[in-house]
């Protein structure tokens, strides 16, 4: 089968490279990654494969230009639309997406992001740094729901610093519990030569301590909103200090935000979060969200050394039985399941909501998360 659109570049063979380069650029604009190396690869592949056989060219280019399943799925459409611009489904779709994105930005920003520390505030650091010791103490114990907007920035600074301490303390603790280590024969022999071949000085090596993986599910439904504002920042700080963290938001469904929190600065991360978070009000379906997690992500993220962290108040509008079953499934896969509940900080709170009581049998650690101090206590469990 010859390519219908082939006359575009078959007229002179000089045009073939130019067409391929144009195709690479076209693909890059539509979401494929890959730079000059890929383009060179494409040119070499085209020389091998020729351009007469459309299917061969398609398969070959797909192998060269894609580097993940997502790109693989995108490719066919890009290929089609490039050779047949007339029936460009893609462009129509992207236009649709654009208009949808417009809708989103017009809509009210979610409560999660309100009061995000803007750049102007971040620059104004002088006043925050002189916060006195008693002020420091007050902020550490203050319930998040009672915090004023202007305390937020100060709290954030303290949190980031404390978390820094926490992660180094954690790694040191690991190192000390590691046993004597194993004999490093290679270096022992090396050194024995100096002693005429008698291995007198023994050399050891130790396994580098690996911190646990962390998976975090953060509830951002309406009932959590006084807390989620700060918990997002907490999670951001956690992700900055621990290497392997995956973070999800949930209310009625689940959405991964790991990549968004990877932003270098917090305001940046919050801005991209606010663009993403839509329709977050409404009920909480913890069971359904966990089910999403189990089917889509558990296989990838849950291993024997994973610590699974849920930050939620346990107000569930779904079926408690489903919540229990899904939680049990998670529990089976991970090392430890921790549930942090901000309401546990209230003096008279009892975990009696249907959801919470269904969940408790499957939870290893049930702890409060209403102020900074309670969050720092998490260290003991990681």
């Amino acid at each position, binding site marked *: 089968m010859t390519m219908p659109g082939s006359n575009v570049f078959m007229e002179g063979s000089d045009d073939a490279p130019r067409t391929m380069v144009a195709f690479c650029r076209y693909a890059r604009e539509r979401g494929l990654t890959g730079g000059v190396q890929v383009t060179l690869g494409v040119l070499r592949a085209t020389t091998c494969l020729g351009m007469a056989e459309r299917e061969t060219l398609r*398969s070959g280019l*797909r192998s060269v230009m894609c580097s993940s399943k997502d790109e693989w799925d995108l490719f066919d459409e890009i290929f089609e639309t490039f050779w047949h611009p007339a029936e460009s489904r893609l462009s129509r779709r992207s236009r649709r997406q654009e208009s949808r994105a417009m809708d989103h930005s017009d809509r009210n920003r979610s409560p999660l992001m309100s009061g995000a520390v803007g750049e102007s505030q971040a620059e104004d650091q002088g006043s925050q740094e002189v916060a006195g010791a008693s002020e420091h103490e007050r902020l550490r114990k203050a319930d998040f729901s009672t915090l004023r907007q202007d305390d937020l920035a100060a709290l954030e600074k303290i949190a980031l610093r404390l978390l820094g301490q926490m992660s180094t303390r954690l790694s040191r603790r690991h190192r000390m519990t590691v046993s004597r280590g194993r004999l490093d024969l290679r270096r022992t022999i090396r050194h024995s030569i100096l002693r005429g071949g008698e291995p007198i000085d023994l050399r050891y090596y130790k396994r580098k301590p690996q911190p646990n993986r962390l998976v975090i599910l953060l509830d951002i439904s309406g009932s959590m909103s006084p807390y989620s504002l700060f918990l997002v920042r907490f999670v951001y700080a956690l992700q900055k200090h621990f290497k392997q963290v995956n973070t999800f938001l949930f209310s009625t469904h689940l959405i991964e935000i790991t990549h968004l929190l990877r932003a270098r600065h917090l305001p940046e991360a919050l801005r991209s979060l606010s663009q993403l978070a839509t329709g977050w009000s409404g009920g909480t379906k913890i069971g359904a969200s966990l089910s999403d997690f189990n089917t889509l992500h558990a296989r990838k993220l849950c291993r024997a050394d994973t610590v699974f962290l849920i930050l939620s108040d346990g107000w569930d509008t779904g079926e408690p039985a489903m919540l229990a079953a899904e939680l049990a499934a998670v529990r089976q896969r991970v090392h430890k399941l921790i549930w942090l509940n901000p309401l546990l900080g209230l003096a008279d709170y009892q975990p009696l909501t249907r959801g919470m009581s269904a969940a408790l049998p499957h939870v290893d650690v049930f702890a409060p998360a209403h102020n900074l101090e309670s969050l720092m206590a998490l260290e003991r469990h990681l």
Partner: protein
Amino acid sequence: METSVPSSPSASSQSIDTIISGFEHLGYVTDHSLATAIYLVTQLRKPLLVEGHAGLGKTEVAKVLAAFLATRLIRLQCYEGLDVSSAVYEWNYQKQLLAIKIQEPSKQTVEEKEKHIFSREFLLERPLLQSILVEDASPVLLIDEIDRADEAFEAFLLELLSDFQVTIPELGTVHAKHVPFVILTSNRSRELGDALKRRCLYQWIDYPDLEKEMRIVRTRFPRIEQQLAGQVVQFVQFVRKLPLSKPPGIAETLDCAQALMALGKHRLDPQAVEETLSCVSKSVEDSAKIKSAGLERILSLPTGQ
């Protein structure tokens, strides 16, 4: 690393057909897409990264490629904590200690002794070094389940795959005489680094459609009864659509077909399904889901093959 002169385009489609038929001859049913990728591996000499769910024959690609090219297959199975000493090389310490003892009375200087015990004689070659040291022809190097190895190893691999050389401090640098054909497989249990992915050709292997799976079953078991083959494939294709925690791959289809043949069944009925369910489902929950999914309907379908 110089690639052979690209053959003419018309020769390419011929070569791809040769790959398809050659692989089929070796019991591996492939499609045009994968065959093209393999053809490019042989022409461009780039590594091929094969991704897909478990049990779809990713590892098999390398094995069959080695058989097809009549060359050696060298396999490196990755796991968490895989390090250079088990992937590239290691010194044979026991032998070194013995040699030191034996040399004791000799009048050799320390340098001479050192040179002796760090010679090739005392080197244990692990897969990656083996693949570089092959003397006669390019081997196929299979790096299996690369997603299980940690990122540090991935970074090391990057260097190896671009230069095909290994530096051993005591011996010097070893260059590959024949650049291996490299196949990497991944189950996507974690995302691989961009740098590695960019260096590779990419191939996604999906669950096969009905027709392809039929061909696979018949290629593997030429003596299977037509009706049974059709039913098994339809059954597995149906099961795959259920929300299972571990959907069955082609390996499971083949297990199931083989089990039925071993049990002397001629057609798949509810009882036969019950007996061979362990081939298809790997957990209690999945088994329950399959049983309650209305199997009668799928079993009574005419086998239109």
